[in-house]
């Protein structure tokens, strides 16, 4: 059930150039949230920024009553967020979206590009907690932008990285690196989750049948409400019942997690 609540900033720290980690005290949301869900956040009184901004839950800590957000400073909203410090309040709507459903047993793989790593951390932690094997694949432009590597290592059997400059993983595609691991280690891979790159998500489509997993992508769309009310955040999803062959689904309510094979790319 969606809530509209104040949260208090516990800490905010810079984790990489232009990337911040925000820790927020908000017990009700921490208790209700599932991995893959997100919140709408507002941290300003400025009337020029009329919309709250969507952010995935990077970590969900029900016992501490906290949620964490890993974000990239992109425009005016995130710049304002970055100015807030411990003790200040933010406004939150959430938890939004359907979140993910983990398989009962076996292994999962997480493929994140850049800030796309953010929602994967919560999934990694939950999967590990449930006794699943986690394989994490991270890519970015350069090493300093590989986010959360150490934390992922705690929850993963393996963390494989790749940077565009070739310093990590020879700059190879994460899907290729995934195939390597599958071929070498034959994990019992049930689900793959990806975020941060359309190319990565599309690259998973042909691999599903070959390796017997189902791949999901966490989509982004510009959002106004985050609660299903405005109908603004749609993506095209295959729909054989329609003459066009697709229908629009709301990323905020019907997603943000979608099977890669159902999205019209």
């Amino acid at each position, binding site marked *: 059930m969606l809530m509209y609540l104040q949260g208090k900033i516990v800490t905010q720290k810079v984790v990489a150039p232009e990337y911040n980690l925000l820790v927020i005290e908000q017990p009700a949301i921490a208790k209700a949230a599932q991995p893959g869900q997100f919140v709408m956040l507002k941290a300003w009184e400025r009337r020029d920024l*009329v919309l709250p901004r969507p952010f995935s839950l990077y970590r969900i800590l029900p016992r501490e009553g906290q949620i964490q957000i890993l974000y990239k400073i992109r425009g005016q909203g995130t710049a304002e967020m970055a100015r807030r410090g411990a003790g200040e309040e933010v406004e939150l709507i959430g938890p939004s979206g359907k979140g993910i459903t983990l398989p009962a047993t076996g292994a999962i793989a997480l493929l994140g590009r850049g800030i796309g790593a953010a929602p994967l951390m919560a999934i990694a932690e939950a999967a590990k907690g449930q006794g699943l094997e986690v394989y994490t694949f991270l890519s970015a432009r350069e090493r300093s932008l590989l986010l959360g590597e150490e934390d992922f290592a705690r929850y993963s059997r393996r963390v494989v990285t790749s940077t565009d400059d070739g310093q990590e993983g020879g700059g190879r595609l994460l899907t290729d690196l995934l195939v390597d691991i599958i071929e070498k280690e034959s994990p019992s891979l049930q689900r793959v989750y990806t975020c941060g790159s359309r190319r990565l998500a599309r690259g998973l489509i042909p691999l599903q049948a070959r390796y017997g997993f189902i791949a999901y992508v966490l989509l982004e769309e510009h959002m106004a409400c985050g609660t*299903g009310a405005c109908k603004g955040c749609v993506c095209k999803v295959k729909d054989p019942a329609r003459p066009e062959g697709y229908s*629009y689904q709301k990323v905020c309510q019907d997603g943000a997690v979608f099977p890669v094979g159902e999205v019209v790319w």
Partner: protein
Amino acid sequence: MAADLSVELLPGLRLKNPVMPASGTYECGSANVYNPGQLGAIVTKSVAPVPWPGNAPPRLHETTGGLLNAVGIPSEGVVAFREKVLPTLRQYDTALIISVAGETTEEFARVIQALEGEAGISAYELNFSCPNLGDGIPFGTNPDLLYQAVARARQETKRPIIVKLSPNVTDIALMAREAQKAGASAVALINTLTGMAIDVRRRRPVLGNTFGGLSGPAIKPVALRMVWEVAGAVDLPVIGVGGISNTSDALEFLLAGARAIQVGTANFANPLVMPQIINGIASYLEENGFSKITDIIGLARKGEEDWG
């Protein structure tokens, strides 16, 4: 003693307070925030005669103090609306206004026909923002088309008809007068101003539909001016919409002559904004010695002659 917030919006339709959502910006119970029964009325997203998919994404873009939306009117169609949505909406203890969309005069009539057998509908609000299938010009900007569509809808129902006006016109008072002549019970204004944005990096329009409707605080001065003009031009109740984000904004519209107000874009950032405005209006009345809200409706027009 607490001030009386109730208004008789239309003969026989008394609202417990003058605050309601703007069509398409509020879903009952979508956030667990308050009971929608507290509102003066519930207004639905516009209902189309048949299922409509809406526009291609991207559908949203934020501008300075505003929101461009090119959602279009995605709709499950009136039959699905009647079977699946209406029963839950009727549960709330407040007035229920059904927003109606169409691409032809007949389509408006068809939606109303499909709902006439249903109980619990307080009024229809006709949304004329869609281009007319015939000539592509929105009903809302062509006085003759508007007249015809309202007159046709009037034949279908005895229920109150609220005509929602588009601001993209030269003479909003003329449009309101046409609505009145055609039998409208009230007018609501404004719908969104047509706008657009260009992505300078990709060098193409941001919105899938190129054009979108501008809403939010940016448009409030235009909305208020049009409400002022229309309240002075027709003998119908006026519902003010456009950029209302707090109590002070709402009061401006009431003082300009609106008998009720709708809140749209502001719901997104602050899901509690409508109950906050209801309380805020009550406080304003009490602090300023008014016993009832009707005392302030149109009050800024008193002595209008003096200040131009």
